[in-house]
């Protein structure tokens, strides 16, 4: 563990010195593919935008992605990703491209770690002063296909974490919207679960005061942040309960799967802030992202 930190420190300092130093005339300073991947991973978990963007092909460090970089860093908690045991295969057709197979390790400061095989394609990049390797991202579309593959199936042989992160950095706008939508969906799912527990406690009656949604559900979810949708300032209560269901017995509700329970917005109007979609939690507990077209046929009355 200590070795990794030392290595990273030396690397970072080396990079700074290299970028400040005048380029030597004959031999260039080169950062190996392995060091490039490690610099990229540590930049991601520390929220360094420029460091992460520098190591990804097509990424633009100037794009306003500080917020997203911070969100990515926060999602790692105290865990830090790093990569080791590199095996490099040069592309026979293109000597500036290399396929790297390695082990990606997620470790925290108190000795816990989990590791899995991973791979990435890297492209050589020469600047005036030094040479380094950039991770080639996938397009967001390709990734979505790959992601659905996970589902509830067994974990795949390769983690895909490195390329996925590179894609987040290369396409921050699309990926952040998607990240916010998934996060918001997961918040609604948990709030829905809390609501169901509340209903059980009140003899199947939906005993909620709509303006006091947070006060009523909080004891069941025990998390303040669940009530604030991604993109809203902390403390905002972004979700509302469908007022038409308040006071009803849940057993009297027919076709609960199509009746709106909790939604993002106000006064029964959805907020389509995530790429034109808005997450809705239905009364059977399932959550779906709804388009404005689909919203017209939503059922609000029990």
């Amino acid at each position, binding site marked *: 563990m200590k070795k990794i930190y030392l290595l990273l420190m030396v690397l970072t300092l080396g990079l700074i010195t290299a970028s400040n130093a005048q380029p030597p005339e004959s031999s260039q300073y080169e950062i190996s593919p392995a060091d490039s991947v490690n610099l990229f991973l540590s930049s991601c978990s520390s929220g360094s935008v420029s460091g992460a963007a520098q190591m990804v092909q097509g990424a633009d460090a100037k794009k306003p992605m500080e917020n997203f970089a911070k969100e*990515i*860093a926060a*999602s790692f908690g105290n865990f830090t990703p790093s990569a080791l045991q590199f095996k490099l295969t040069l592309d026979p057709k293109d000597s500036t491209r290399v396929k790297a197979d390695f082990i990606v390790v997620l470790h925290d400061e108190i000795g816990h770690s989990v590791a899995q095989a991973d791979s990435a394609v890297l492209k050589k990049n020469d600047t005036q002063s030094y040479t380094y390797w950039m991770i080639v991202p996938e397009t967001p579309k390709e990734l979505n296909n790959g992601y659905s593959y996970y589902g509830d199936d067994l974990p795949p042989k390769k983690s895909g974490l490195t390329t996925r992160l590179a894609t987040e950095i290369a396409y921050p706008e699309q990926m952040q919207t998607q990240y916010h939508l998934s996060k918001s969906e997961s918040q609604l799912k948990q709030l829905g679960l809390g609501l169901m527990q509340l209903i059980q406690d009140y003899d199947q009656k939906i005993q909620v005061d709509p303006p006091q949604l947070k006060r009523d559900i909080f004891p069941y979810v025990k998390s303040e942040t669940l009530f604030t949708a991604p993109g809203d300032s902390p403390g905002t209560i972004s979700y509302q309960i469908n007022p038409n269901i308040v006071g009803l017995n849940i057993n009297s509700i027919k076709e609960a799967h199509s009746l709106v329970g909790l939604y993002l917005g106000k006064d029964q109007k959805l907020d389509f802030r995530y790429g034109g979609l808005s997450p809705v939690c239905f009364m059977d507990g399932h959550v779906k992202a709804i388009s404005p077209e689909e919203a017209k046929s939503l059922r609000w009355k029990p």
Partner: protein
Amino acid sequence: MKKIYQVLLSSSLVFSVSTIAKAQPPEPTEPAIQLPPLHYSRTSEDTVQRFISESAMGNATYPNDYVEGVDNSNAALPQIGGIRKLDLGNFVLAARDITISPNPQSPDLVTANFTLEFSDDALGLKLAQKDSVELKRHLIPNNKQEGKNEYWSIVPGDPQKYFEDNSSPEKSGFTERLATLFAYSKEMLPKIHLQQSELQLKQLGLALMMFSQDYAEQLVFTQENYVEKLTPYLKNKTIFVAPGTNADATNFTINPNIAGLKLTQDLDYEDTVAFYLGKDQKLDFRYDGLSPVCFLDGHVEAISPEEAKNLEWQP
């Protein structure tokens, strides 16, 4: 979702059945066994699955049911639970693909092999590794029906070997380490806190170097404003707070003698104190009689009261 409800429903059913069972007087033929906190059957698969998911949520009330030899009344236990939750960020843990192999030597021991999965669904990140853990069976007399209820608990590892690297591609060791934290929470807490504070001090040392580079190799701050001046170089202000203390406190203090120092001078960087845990140049030996110190060259050491006498405070 439905499955969760089913599980909840069935477990609460079993629980109510077992509560009735508990109310019956024990049969005189049964040997006196002290009842563990759980009174219903639980398979070894279930034990692994629920231990991993519940402890990842920072729930310290439940993991103690899943690990061998946990002292429920131990005050360090909730703190260990809190540490776990903070560590994980948005990651959720799950055990998949669990297979149980019996131990030929003892019917009361089994090994569970499974895939440990870290996933952050919103960001689409997933990491999975094989892991294994040993479980021990407990038989509880079942007074209502014939036979006995059985439940399994995870056997923790050796706390002395906690920080030794035992990982391999076949075994993450994560689950056993987690169980060790719960089983030996009292011994482990100061060790964990020391480890955490050493890493925090390392980050402070790095921030100090970055700061000096930006200000022409000079530490242009005073004893009063160093927290403000260094914060832009840190992930957050909580780095100044030692683990296990109130979030508003500043426990990592700067050696006042280095404020304003020019780092190009020929100094004894290796031996001069930069940051320490304590106040007024007196170390706080709160972690099992040790106190972490960050020196001017950025390295961090855990210092005993004896070693503290020889610390260099003047650069």
